[in-house]
């Protein structure tokens, strides 16, 4: 790892980015597991950071699909940092309910423990939590990570934070990439997302330009700590997986 160097840049349409990312991951497997032929049997943990609504979960999902289609279904998986939101119960108990989404409203120690276990790789299936937008809470033991899995893409806002527990987790990741998206597009996507989850336009705008914007600035400040900056020339607005899932659920409920 080379934290002091300027990050490299991977820029292009989605196909180019997916191919470039795959090449880089396979390179990491070979480089970090020199004892294994072509890195077979090794495991890399790659972080994908970025500001809210930059498209992290979409890109992570597409990348895992891409890797699985080429290397088999258990080869790669996504672990979202969103699963480590403190539950509303804990936020209320700790007086943090109004700060929801800020860095101190995440279970950074729980995240560090999971990353440690994924790195150690000495257990059977390790389960990660997943945030449920329906329940507005994280559901524990939702995402199985098999011992055979060789690539874990960890995506989330705060992977590059220099604060103690976050940087401890950062040390355990092989690389962290930063997904860049221009501010105007990001704001539009953020407002749309809040509206999909029940806010009116004014509330959505207020949150996007308030708490979210402050969180976003914190996150952007640390992007130089990434090894790779990714810029998608075709921003994946219409392929947001939460959007697809949400509209499917809505249809189900009204049916």
């Amino acid at each position, binding site marked *: 790892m080379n934290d002091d160097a300027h990050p490299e840049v991977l820029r292009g349409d989605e196909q180019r980015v997916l191919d470039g990312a795959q090449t880089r991951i396979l390179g990491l497997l070979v480089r970090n597991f020199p004892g294994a032929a072509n890195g077979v049997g090794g495991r890399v943990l790659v972080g994908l950071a970025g500001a809210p609504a930059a498209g992290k979960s979409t890109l992570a999902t597409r990348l895992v699909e891409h890797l699985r289609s080429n290397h088999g279904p258990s080869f790669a998986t996504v672990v979202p940092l969103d*699963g480590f*939101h403190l539950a509303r119960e804990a936020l209320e108990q700790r007086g943090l309910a109004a700060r929801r989404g800020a860095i101190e409203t995440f279970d950074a*120690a*729980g995240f560090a*423990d999971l990353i440690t*276990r994924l790195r150690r790789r000495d257990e*059977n299936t390790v389960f990660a939590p997943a945030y449920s937008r329906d329940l507005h809470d994280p559901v524990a033991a939702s995402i*199985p990570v098999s011992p055979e899995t060789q690539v874990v893409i960890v995506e989330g806002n705060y992977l590059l934070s220099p604060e*103690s527990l976050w940087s401890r987790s950062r040390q355990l990741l092989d690389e962290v990439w930063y997904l860049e998206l221009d501010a105007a597009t990001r704001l539009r996507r953020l407002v749309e997302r809040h509206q999909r989850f029940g806010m009116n336009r004014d509330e959505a705008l207020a949150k996007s330009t308030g708490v979210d914007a402050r969180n976003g600035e914190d996150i952007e400040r640390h992007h130089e700590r990434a090894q790779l900056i990714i810029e998608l020339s075709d921003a994946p607005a219409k392929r947001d997986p939460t959007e697809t899932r949400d509209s499917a659920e809505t249809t189900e409920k009204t049916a």
Partner: protein
Amino acid sequence: MIDLTVQELSLEELFDRARALAVPGERHILGFTGAPGAGKSTVAEQVVDALGPDLAALVPMDGFHLANEVLLALGRRDRKGAHDTFDAAGYASLMTRIRGQQQSNLAGDDAIVYAPRFRREIEEPIGSSIPVHPDTPLIVTEGNYLLLESGAWPQARAAIDQVWFLAPVEAVRHERLVKRHEAYGKSHEEAELWALGSDQRNAEVIEATASRAEAILRLL
């Protein structure tokens, strides 16, 4: 045969025994186990209430239910509650963190360990729900499988100082179980069937683990 000596004691005597483990400045973990209907969660709650929040906190094992999404994918949805429908390794990892919590070099809010909580009304485990503070001397945990010898359960057991096995009179346990099923909407006949059927098979598995407990207790 192993000698399973059942010790009879009052609730007050039980509180005193638990209090002896709650030494300020130290960290101990006390586990309650027993067959379904043995009174684990009630007794664990009573102990934590009696000692108060400065001395004790409760971290139930059932927070480690696998999410319904995972159970569906594994084809185990209809066996929810069986030992392989829990994230035993997650429980072991959390118990290990709780045991070493005071020795960690983390300070302030970073030193809080969060445990999941099973929410019965939605039948899902909600992550990072229960804050466990490093200066709480006694952590009480309770569940069916604390003494199981398979999978990752022994690693959880290794982090727990003492496991007390609750062994009420069989008729009492049976009646409690039937009432619980009725409270969740089953008719009396259905409740009896459950208590004698799948509950009973589960109970036999759990009772076979009693010899690994530090104490087998029957409340008077």
